[in-house]
Protein backbone atom coordinates (compact mmCIF):
# COMPACT_ATOMS: atom_id res chain seq x y z
CA UNK A 1 0.00 0.00 0.00
CA UNK A 2 2.79 2.43 0.89
CA UNK A 3 4.66 1.52 -2.27
CA UNK A 4 1.60 2.57 -4.26
CA UNK A 5 1.57 5.97 -2.56
CA UNK A 6 5.28 6.27 -3.24
CA UNK A 7 4.85 5.50 -6.94
CA UNK A 8 2.00 8.03 -7.11
CA UNK A 9 4.36 10.64 -5.69
CA UNK A 10 7.21 9.68 -7.99
CA UNK A 11 4.96 9.95 -11.04
CA UNK A 12 3.55 13.26 -9.83
CA UNK A 13 7.05 14.71 -9.52
CA UNK A 14 7.47 14.14 -13.25
CA UNK A 15 5.07 17.04 -13.76
CA UNK A 16 8.08 19.27 -13.15
CA UNK A 17 10.58 17.27 -15.16
CA UNK A 18 11.87 18.30 -18.56
CA UNK A 19 9.85 16.91 -21.44
CA UNK A 20 11.79 14.74 -23.82
CA UNK A 21 9.60 15.28 -26.87
CA UNK A 22 11.26 16.95 -29.85
CA UNK A 23 8.62 19.23 -31.38
CA UNK A 24 9.37 17.94 -34.83
CA UNK A 25 8.50 20.37 -37.60
CA UNK A 26 9.83 23.33 -35.61
CA UNK A 27 12.65 21.53 -33.81
CA UNK A 28 14.61 18.91 -35.64
CA UNK A 29 16.48 16.01 -34.14
CA UNK A 30 20.20 15.78 -34.89
CA UNK A 31 20.93 13.15 -37.51
CA UNK A 32 24.55 12.07 -37.78
CA UNK A 33 26.37 12.55 -41.11
CA UNK A 34 26.39 8.79 -41.50
CA UNK A 35 22.60 8.61 -41.19
CA UNK A 36 21.05 6.48 -43.91
CA UNK A 37 18.46 8.77 -45.53
CA UNK A 38 17.76 10.10 -49.01
CA UNK A 39 20.19 8.72 -51.61
CA UNK A 40 22.22 11.10 -53.79
CA UNK A 41 24.65 10.79 -56.67
CA UNK A 42 27.78 12.89 -56.08
CA UNK A 43 30.29 14.57 -58.34
CA UNK A 44 34.08 14.77 -58.53
CA UNK A 45 35.88 17.80 -57.08
CA UNK A 46 36.20 18.80 -60.77
CA UNK A 47 32.46 18.63 -61.25
CA UNK A 48 32.30 15.45 -63.33
CA UNK A 49 29.96 12.61 -62.54
CA UNK A 50 31.48 10.01 -60.26
CA UNK A 51 29.16 7.20 -61.27
CA UNK A 52 30.78 4.81 -63.74
CA UNK A 53 27.58 2.79 -64.27
CA UNK A 54 29.14 -0.43 -63.00
CA UNK A 55 25.74 -1.70 -61.79
CA UNK A 56 27.19 -2.92 -58.49
CA UNK A 57 24.66 -0.85 -56.52
CA UNK A 58 21.78 -2.30 -58.50
CA UNK A 59 23.14 -5.80 -57.86
CA UNK A 60 23.68 -5.15 -54.16
CA UNK A 61 20.21 -3.67 -53.68
CA UNK A 62 18.11 -6.25 -51.80
CA UNK A 63 14.81 -4.78 -53.01
CA UNK A 64 15.86 -4.05 -56.59
CA UNK A 65 14.92 -0.41 -56.42
CA UNK A 66 17.87 0.88 -58.48
CA UNK A 67 17.87 0.68 -62.25
CA UNK A 68 20.38 2.25 -64.62
CA UNK A 69 21.74 2.02 -68.15
CA UNK A 70 25.47 2.41 -68.82
CA UNK A 71 26.87 4.36 -71.72
CA UNK A 72 30.18 6.03 -72.69
CA UNK A 73 31.07 9.59 -73.52
CA UNK A 74 33.50 10.72 -76.22
CA UNK A 75 36.50 10.33 -73.84
CA UNK A 76 35.66 6.72 -73.14
CA UNK A 77 34.30 7.48 -69.66
CA UNK A 78 31.43 5.31 -68.63
CA UNK A 79 28.45 7.05 -67.12
CA UNK A 80 24.80 6.16 -66.58
CA UNK A 81 22.43 7.12 -69.39
CA UNK A 82 19.62 7.05 -66.87
CA UNK A 83 19.74 6.33 -63.18
CA UNK A 84 16.49 5.71 -61.38
CA UNK A 85 15.79 4.91 -57.73
CA UNK A 86 12.28 3.92 -56.70
CA UNK A 87 12.10 5.27 -53.14
CA UNK A 88 8.76 3.61 -52.48
CA UNK A 89 10.73 0.36 -52.53
CA UNK A 90 14.01 1.53 -51.05
CA UNK A 91 14.65 0.31 -47.52
CA UNK A 92 17.62 2.62 -46.90
CA UNK A 93 19.92 -0.26 -46.03
CA UNK A 94 22.98 1.48 -47.48
CA UNK A 95 24.26 -1.58 -49.35
CA UNK A 96 24.47 0.45 -52.55
CA UNK A 97 26.78 2.94 -50.84
CA UNK A 98 28.97 0.10 -49.57
CA UNK A 99 29.09 -1.55 -52.98
CA UNK A 100 29.95 1.62 -54.88
CA UNK A 101 33.63 1.56 -56.02
CA UNK A 102 33.73 5.29 -56.81
CA UNK A 103 31.90 6.82 -53.80
CA UNK A 104 29.31 8.07 -56.28
CA UNK A 105 26.15 6.87 -54.55
CA UNK A 106 25.81 8.12 -50.96
CA UNK A 107 23.11 8.19 -48.31
CA UNK A 108 22.41 11.52 -46.62
CA UNK A 109 20.84 12.55 -43.29
CA UNK A 110 17.60 13.72 -44.88
CA UNK A 111 14.34 11.91 -44.29
CA UNK A 112 11.76 14.46 -45.37
CA UNK A 113 10.74 13.04 -48.70
CA UNK A 114 7.00 12.41 -48.25
CA UNK A 115 4.82 12.60 -51.34
CA UNK A 116 1.10 12.44 -52.03
CA UNK A 117 1.56 10.47 -55.24
CA UNK A 118 3.48 7.24 -55.33
CA UNK A 119 4.90 8.04 -58.75
CA UNK A 120 6.66 11.05 -57.32
CA UNK A 121 8.81 8.73 -55.23
CA UNK A 122 10.61 7.51 -58.33
CA UNK A 123 13.70 9.73 -58.51
CA UNK A 124 15.42 10.18 -61.84
CA UNK A 125 19.09 11.03 -62.32
CA UNK A 126 18.38 14.75 -62.29
CA UNK A 127 16.67 14.41 -58.91
CA UNK A 128 19.49 12.31 -57.47
CA UNK A 129 22.51 14.24 -58.74
CA UNK A 130 24.00 16.84 -56.41
CA UNK A 131 26.67 19.40 -57.19
CA UNK A 132 29.17 18.50 -54.48
CA UNK A 133 31.40 15.56 -53.63
CA UNK A 134 29.38 14.48 -50.57
CA UNK A 135 31.26 12.77 -47.77
CA UNK A 136 34.55 12.38 -49.72
CA UNK A 137 35.57 15.89 -50.77
CA UNK A 138 38.97 15.11 -52.34
CA UNK A 139 38.29 11.81 -54.04
CA UNK A 140 38.35 11.67 -57.82
CA UNK A 141 38.02 8.16 -59.20
CA UNK A 142 39.39 8.91 -62.63
CA UNK A 143 42.49 10.56 -61.13
CA UNK A 144 43.41 7.49 -59.10
CA UNK A 145 42.27 4.76 -61.46
CA UNK A 146 44.72 3.32 -63.96
CA UNK A 147 42.29 3.50 -66.82
CA UNK A 148 43.13 5.61 -69.85
CA UNK A 149 40.49 8.16 -70.71
CA UNK A 150 40.53 11.27 -72.82
CA UNK A 151 42.94 13.82 -71.29
CA UNK A 152 44.72 11.25 -69.08
CA UNK A 153 46.80 8.44 -70.42
CA UNK A 154 47.92 5.29 -68.64
CA UNK A 155 50.38 5.92 -65.83
CA UNK A 156 49.34 9.55 -65.31
CA UNK A 157 47.10 8.99 -62.35
CA UNK A 158 48.10 10.10 -58.83
CA UNK A 159 50.63 7.71 -57.23
CA UNK A 160 50.64 5.63 -60.41
CA UNK A 161 53.85 4.33 -61.97
CA UNK A 162 54.38 4.49 -65.69
CA UNK A 163 53.19 1.36 -67.47
CA UNK A 164 55.65 -1.51 -67.68
CA UNK A 165 57.36 -1.73 -71.07
CA UNK A 166 56.63 -5.34 -71.97
CA UNK A 167 59.16 -5.23 -74.80
CA UNK A 168 62.07 -4.51 -72.48
CA UNK A 169 63.77 -7.10 -70.30
CA UNK A 170 65.15 -4.54 -67.87
CA UNK A 171 63.62 -4.64 -64.37
Amino acid at each position, binding site marked *: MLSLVRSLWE*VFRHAFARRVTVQYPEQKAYLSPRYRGRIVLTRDPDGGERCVACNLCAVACPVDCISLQATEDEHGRRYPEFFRINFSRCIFCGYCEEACPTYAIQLTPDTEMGEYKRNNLVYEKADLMIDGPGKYPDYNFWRVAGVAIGGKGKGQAENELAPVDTHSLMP
Partner: protein
Amino acid sequence: MMSNLYPLLVIAVVLFVVLNLAAGLIWVERRLLALWQDRYGPNRVGPFGLGQIAADSIKLFLKEDWIPPFADNPVFVLAPAIVVATALISFAVVPFAPGFVIADLNIGVLFLLAMSSLGVYSVVLAGWSSNNKYSLLGGIRAAAQMMSYEVFMGLSLLGVVILAGSFRFTDIVEAQRGMWFVIPQCLGFVLFLIAGVAETRRLPFDLAEAESELIAGFHSEYSGMKFGMFFVGEYIGVILISAAISLLFFGGWLGPVLPPALWFATKTMFFICLFILFRAALPRPRFDQLMSWGWKVMLPLALVNLLVTGAVVLART
Protein backbone atom coordinates in the same frame (compact mmCIF):
# COMPACT_ATOMS: atom_id res chain seq x y z
CA MET B 1 -43.57 31.42 -14.44
CA MET B 2 -39.96 31.94 -13.43
CA SER B 3 -40.23 29.28 -10.75
CA ASN B 4 -41.35 26.79 -13.39
CA LEU B 5 -38.52 27.62 -15.71
CA TYR B 6 -35.78 27.51 -13.06
CA PRO B 7 -35.52 23.69 -12.83
CA LEU B 8 -35.36 23.47 -16.63
CA LEU B 9 -32.56 26.02 -16.61
CA VAL B 10 -30.70 24.03 -13.97
CA ILE B 11 -31.11 20.83 -16.00
CA ALA B 12 -29.85 22.54 -19.14
CA VAL B 13 -26.83 24.01 -17.37
CA VAL B 14 -25.97 20.72 -15.65
CA LEU B 15 -26.25 18.75 -18.89
CA PHE B 16 -24.21 21.34 -20.77
CA VAL B 17 -21.46 21.46 -18.17
CA VAL B 18 -21.26 17.73 -17.54
CA LEU B 19 -21.31 16.63 -21.18
CA ASN B 20 -18.79 19.25 -22.24
CA LEU B 21 -16.55 18.44 -19.32
CA ALA B 22 -16.78 14.74 -20.18
CA ALA B 23 -15.69 15.46 -23.75
CA GLY B 24 -13.01 17.83 -22.54
CA LEU B 25 -11.64 15.20 -20.17
CA ILE B 26 -10.40 13.24 -23.19
CA TRP B 27 -8.01 16.11 -23.82
CA VAL B 28 -7.30 16.72 -20.12
CA GLU B 29 -6.45 13.09 -19.55
CA ARG B 30 -4.16 12.85 -22.55
CA ARG B 31 -2.36 16.07 -21.66
CA LEU B 32 -1.96 15.10 -18.00
CA LEU B 33 -0.76 11.58 -18.80
CA ALA B 34 1.73 13.13 -21.20
CA LEU B 35 2.84 15.62 -18.55
CA TRP B 36 3.58 12.82 -16.10
CA GLN B 37 5.34 10.80 -18.75
CA ASP B 38 7.53 13.77 -19.80
CA ARG B 39 5.75 14.16 -23.13
CA TYR B 40 3.51 16.90 -24.55
CA GLY B 41 0.40 15.03 -25.61
CA PRO B 42 -1.99 16.50 -28.18
CA ASN B 43 -0.82 20.12 -28.60
CA ARG B 44 -1.24 20.72 -32.32
CA VAL B 45 -4.94 21.32 -33.02
CA GLY B 46 -5.83 24.82 -31.90
CA PRO B 47 -4.49 26.58 -28.78
CA PHE B 48 -2.95 24.08 -26.35
CA GLY B 49 -4.39 21.33 -28.56
CA LEU B 50 -7.90 22.12 -27.34
CA GLY B 51 -9.21 21.56 -30.86
CA GLN B 52 -8.38 17.90 -30.29
CA ILE B 53 -11.69 17.61 -28.46
CA ALA B 54 -13.62 18.67 -31.56
CA ALA B 55 -11.39 16.59 -33.81
CA ASP B 56 -11.92 13.48 -31.68
CA SER B 57 -15.68 13.96 -31.52
CA ILE B 58 -15.94 14.49 -35.28
CA LYS B 59 -13.85 11.40 -35.85
CA LEU B 60 -16.04 9.30 -33.57
CA PHE B 61 -19.26 10.56 -35.17
CA LEU B 62 -18.07 9.92 -38.71
CA LYS B 63 -16.72 6.44 -38.10
CA GLU B 64 -18.61 3.48 -39.42
CA ASP B 65 -21.11 2.30 -36.83
CA TRP B 66 -20.59 -1.41 -37.24
CA ILE B 67 -22.77 -3.95 -35.50
CA PRO B 68 -21.25 -7.41 -35.87
CA PRO B 69 -23.65 -9.92 -37.45
CA PHE B 70 -23.17 -12.35 -34.56
CA ALA B 71 -24.10 -9.79 -31.90
CA ASP B 72 -27.41 -9.70 -30.09
CA ASN B 73 -28.62 -6.58 -31.85
CA PRO B 74 -31.11 -4.82 -29.50
CA VAL B 75 -29.04 -5.45 -26.37
CA PHE B 76 -25.87 -4.49 -28.20
CA VAL B 77 -27.37 -1.11 -29.09
CA LEU B 78 -28.92 -0.57 -25.68
CA ALA B 79 -25.81 -1.26 -23.61
CA PRO B 80 -23.82 1.91 -24.39
CA ALA B 81 -26.89 4.06 -23.79
CA ILE B 82 -27.34 2.68 -20.27
CA VAL B 83 -23.94 3.72 -19.02
CA VAL B 84 -24.40 7.34 -20.12
CA ALA B 85 -28.02 7.53 -19.00
CA THR B 86 -27.42 6.20 -15.49
CA ALA B 87 -24.39 8.39 -14.99
CA LEU B 88 -26.30 11.47 -16.16
CA ILE B 89 -29.33 10.64 -14.00
CA SER B 90 -27.03 10.48 -10.96
CA PHE B 91 -26.21 14.14 -11.49
CA ALA B 92 -29.83 14.96 -10.63
CA VAL B 93 -28.96 14.85 -6.93
CA VAL B 94 -25.56 16.56 -7.10
CA PRO B 95 -25.75 20.13 -5.77
CA PHE B 96 -23.35 22.43 -7.63
CA ALA B 97 -24.02 25.37 -5.33
CA PRO B 98 -26.59 26.13 -2.62
CA GLY B 99 -29.99 25.86 -4.35
CA PHE B 100 -28.47 24.87 -7.69
CA VAL B 101 -29.56 21.23 -7.81
CA ILE B 102 -32.07 19.44 -10.03
CA ALA B 103 -33.67 17.26 -7.35
CA ASP B 104 -32.62 17.73 -3.74
CA LEU B 105 -33.76 14.26 -2.68
CA ASN B 106 -33.71 13.39 1.00
CA ILE B 107 -32.12 10.06 -0.02
CA GLY B 108 -29.63 11.67 -2.39
CA VAL B 109 -26.68 9.49 -1.35
CA LEU B 110 -28.68 6.30 -1.83
CA PHE B 111 -29.95 7.52 -5.20
CA LEU B 112 -26.43 8.25 -6.36
CA LEU B 113 -25.17 4.85 -5.22
CA ALA B 114 -28.11 3.07 -6.85
CA MET B 115 -27.75 4.87 -10.16
CA SER B 116 -24.02 4.46 -10.41
CA SER B 117 -24.38 0.74 -9.66
CA LEU B 118 -26.94 0.41 -12.44
CA GLY B 119 -24.14 1.35 -14.79
CA VAL B 120 -22.71 -2.14 -14.43
CA TYR B 121 -25.66 -3.45 -16.45
CA SER B 122 -24.25 -1.63 -19.41
CA VAL B 123 -20.91 -3.41 -19.11
CA VAL B 124 -22.40 -6.84 -18.47
CA LEU B 125 -24.93 -6.53 -21.30
CA ALA B 126 -22.27 -5.23 -23.67
CA GLY B 127 -20.04 -8.17 -22.83
CA TRP B 128 -22.89 -10.62 -23.16
CA SER B 129 -24.42 -9.32 -26.39
CA SER B 130 -21.08 -9.06 -28.17
CA ASN B 131 -20.95 -12.86 -28.43
CA ASN B 132 -17.21 -12.72 -28.01
CA LYS B 133 -15.42 -14.66 -25.32
CA TYR B 134 -13.11 -11.82 -24.36
CA SER B 135 -16.05 -9.44 -24.09
CA LEU B 136 -17.92 -11.94 -21.98
CA LEU B 137 -14.91 -12.38 -19.71
CA GLY B 138 -14.74 -8.61 -19.35
CA GLY B 139 -18.42 -8.43 -18.53
CA ILE B 140 -18.15 -11.18 -15.93
CA ARG B 141 -15.15 -9.50 -14.35
CA ALA B 142 -17.03 -6.20 -14.26
CA ALA B 143 -20.01 -7.82 -12.57
CA ALA B 144 -17.88 -9.53 -9.94
CA GLN B 145 -15.81 -6.41 -9.33
CA MET B 146 -18.88 -4.21 -8.97
CA MET B 147 -20.57 -6.58 -6.55
CA SER B 148 -17.53 -6.70 -4.29
CA TYR B 149 -16.69 -3.01 -4.40
CA GLU B 150 -20.27 -1.79 -4.27
CA VAL B 151 -20.65 -3.32 -0.81
CA PHE B 152 -17.99 -1.34 0.98
CA MET B 153 -18.59 1.70 -1.16
CA GLY B 154 -21.98 2.09 0.48
CA LEU B 155 -20.63 1.16 3.91
CA SER B 156 -17.78 3.65 3.71
CA LEU B 157 -20.30 6.45 3.18
CA LEU B 158 -22.39 5.51 6.18
CA GLY B 159 -19.89 7.14 8.54
CA VAL B 160 -20.52 10.45 6.78
CA VAL B 161 -24.25 9.89 6.93
CA ILE B 162 -24.06 9.18 10.68
CA LEU B 163 -22.09 12.38 11.29
CA ALA B 164 -24.38 14.50 9.12
CA GLY B 165 -27.58 12.77 10.21
CA SER B 166 -29.02 12.92 6.70
CA PHE B 167 -28.84 11.30 3.28
CA ARG B 168 -29.45 14.64 1.60
CA PHE B 169 -26.39 16.10 -0.11
CA THR B 170 -27.13 19.71 0.85
CA ASP B 171 -27.46 18.70 4.52
CA ILE B 172 -24.23 16.75 4.37
CA VAL B 173 -22.38 19.74 2.91
CA GLU B 174 -23.90 22.14 5.43
CA ALA B 175 -22.84 19.79 8.24
CA GLN B 176 -19.22 20.33 7.16
CA ARG B 177 -19.20 24.05 7.98
CA GLY B 178 -17.06 23.43 11.07
CA MET B 179 -14.79 20.70 9.70
CA TRP B 180 -14.54 18.74 6.48
CA PHE B 181 -15.61 15.13 6.97
CA VAL B 182 -12.31 13.94 5.54
CA ILE B 183 -10.73 14.55 8.95
CA PRO B 184 -13.00 12.43 11.15
CA GLN B 185 -13.71 10.05 8.28
CA CYS B 186 -10.26 9.73 6.70
CA LEU B 187 -10.54 5.94 6.59
CA GLY B 188 -13.98 6.25 5.00
CA PHE B 189 -12.52 8.70 2.46
CA VAL B 190 -9.74 6.33 1.43
CA LEU B 191 -12.19 3.43 1.15
CA PHE B 192 -14.66 5.50 -0.88
CA LEU B 193 -11.87 6.73 -3.16
CA ILE B 194 -10.73 3.17 -3.87
CA ALA B 195 -14.29 1.98 -4.37
CA GLY B 196 -14.97 4.97 -6.59
CA VAL B 197 -12.07 4.13 -8.86
CA ALA B 198 -13.33 0.55 -9.04
CA GLU B 199 -16.86 1.79 -9.67
CA THR B 200 -15.82 3.81 -12.70
CA ARG B 201 -13.68 0.89 -13.93
CA ARG B 202 -10.67 3.16 -14.20
CA LEU B 203 -7.12 2.02 -13.90
CA PRO B 204 -5.86 0.36 -11.74
CA PHE B 205 -9.27 -1.33 -11.51
CA ASP B 206 -9.96 -1.61 -15.23
CA LEU B 207 -9.99 -5.39 -15.24
CA ALA B 208 -13.18 -5.40 -17.26
CA GLU B 209 -11.31 -3.60 -20.01
CA ALA B 210 -7.72 -4.80 -19.52
CA GLU B 211 -6.47 -4.05 -23.01
CA SER B 212 -3.32 -6.09 -22.46
CA GLU B 213 -5.12 -9.31 -21.58
CA LEU B 214 -8.75 -9.04 -22.75
CA ILE B 215 -8.24 -6.90 -25.89
CA ALA B 216 -10.42 -4.11 -24.41
CA GLY B 217 -12.84 -6.59 -22.82
CA PHE B 218 -16.48 -5.64 -22.89
CA HIS B 219 -16.20 -3.04 -25.67
CA SER B 220 -13.89 -4.84 -28.08
CA GLU B 221 -16.74 -5.32 -30.59
CA TYR B 222 -17.88 -1.70 -30.40
CA SER B 223 -16.97 1.00 -32.87
CA GLY B 224 -17.86 4.55 -33.77
CA MET B 225 -20.07 6.51 -31.45
CA LYS B 226 -21.21 3.43 -29.51
CA PHE B 227 -17.63 3.01 -28.40
CA GLY B 228 -17.59 6.75 -27.80
CA MET B 229 -20.60 6.40 -25.50
CA PHE B 230 -18.69 3.98 -23.28
CA PHE B 231 -15.88 6.51 -23.13
CA VAL B 232 -18.18 9.41 -22.36
CA GLY B 233 -19.97 7.28 -19.78
CA GLU B 234 -16.66 6.46 -18.13
CA TYR B 235 -15.70 10.12 -17.99
CA ILE B 236 -19.10 11.15 -16.64
CA GLY B 237 -18.59 8.47 -14.00
CA VAL B 238 -15.22 9.97 -13.11
CA ILE B 239 -16.79 13.43 -12.80
CA LEU B 240 -19.62 11.98 -10.72
CA ILE B 241 -17.35 10.17 -8.26
CA SER B 242 -15.08 13.22 -7.99
CA ALA B 243 -18.09 15.44 -7.34
CA ALA B 244 -19.37 12.96 -4.74
CA ILE B 245 -15.98 12.88 -2.99
CA SER B 246 -15.79 16.66 -2.83
CA LEU B 247 -19.40 16.88 -1.58
CA LEU B 248 -19.18 14.13 1.00
CA PHE B 249 -15.67 14.59 2.37
CA PHE B 250 -14.34 17.99 1.31
CA GLY B 251 -17.21 20.34 2.03
CA GLY B 252 -18.57 20.68 -1.50
CA TRP B 253 -19.11 24.35 -2.28
CA LEU B 254 -17.94 25.58 1.14
CA GLY B 255 -14.88 27.78 1.07
CA PRO B 256 -13.76 31.37 1.60
CA VAL B 257 -13.75 34.27 -0.89
CA LEU B 258 -14.48 32.45 -4.14
CA PRO B 259 -18.10 31.82 -5.23
CA PRO B 260 -19.50 28.44 -4.10
CA ALA B 261 -19.78 26.90 -7.59
CA LEU B 262 -16.12 27.69 -8.23
CA TRP B 263 -15.04 25.99 -5.00
CA PHE B 264 -17.06 22.94 -5.96
CA ALA B 265 -15.58 22.90 -9.47
CA THR B 266 -12.04 23.28 -8.13
CA LYS B 267 -12.40 20.42 -5.67
CA THR B 268 -14.02 18.20 -8.29
CA MET B 269 -11.30 18.99 -10.81
CA PHE B 270 -8.66 18.11 -8.23
CA PHE B 271 -10.10 14.64 -7.78
CA ILE B 272 -10.50 14.16 -11.53
CA CYS B 273 -6.79 14.87 -11.84
CA LEU B 274 -6.14 12.42 -9.01
CA PHE B 275 -8.04 9.77 -10.99
CA ILE B 276 -5.79 10.44 -13.96
CA LEU B 277 -2.72 10.28 -11.72
CA PHE B 278 -3.88 6.84 -10.58
CA ARG B 279 -4.00 5.80 -14.19
CA ALA B 280 -0.55 7.19 -14.86
CA ALA B 281 1.12 5.58 -11.86
CA LEU B 282 -0.51 2.38 -10.69
CA PRO B 283 -0.28 -1.14 -12.10
CA ARG B 284 -3.35 -3.28 -12.56
CA PRO B 285 -3.80 -5.97 -9.86
CA ARG B 286 -4.46 -9.59 -10.65
CA PHE B 287 -8.14 -10.48 -10.54
CA ASP B 288 -7.85 -12.71 -7.45
CA GLN B 289 -5.92 -9.95 -5.67
CA LEU B 290 -8.69 -7.52 -6.53
CA MET B 291 -11.30 -9.86 -5.10
CA SER B 292 -9.42 -10.72 -1.94
CA TRP B 293 -8.65 -7.05 -1.22
CA GLY B 294 -12.28 -6.18 -1.68
CA TRP B 295 -13.69 -8.83 0.60
CA LYS B 296 -10.87 -9.47 3.08
CA VAL B 297 -9.42 -5.99 3.60
CA MET B 298 -11.76 -3.26 2.43
CA LEU B 299 -15.03 -4.68 3.68
CA PRO B 300 -13.80 -5.35 7.27
CA LEU B 301 -12.18 -1.91 7.34
CA ALA B 302 -15.42 -0.29 6.23
CA LEU B 303 -17.33 -2.17 8.93
CA VAL B 304 -14.80 -1.15 11.59
CA ASN B 305 -15.03 2.45 10.41
CA LEU B 306 -18.81 2.32 10.64
CA LEU B 307 -18.75 0.73 14.13
CA VAL B 308 -16.24 3.20 15.53
CA THR B 309 -18.04 6.20 14.06
CA GLY B 310 -21.34 4.98 15.42
CA ALA B 311 -19.85 4.34 18.86
CA VAL B 312 -18.25 7.80 19.01
CA VAL B 313 -21.45 9.53 17.94
CA LEU B 314 -23.44 7.53 20.48
CA ALA B 315 -20.96 8.28 23.24
CA ARG B 316 -21.19 12.01 22.51
CA THR B 317 -24.97 12.22 22.68
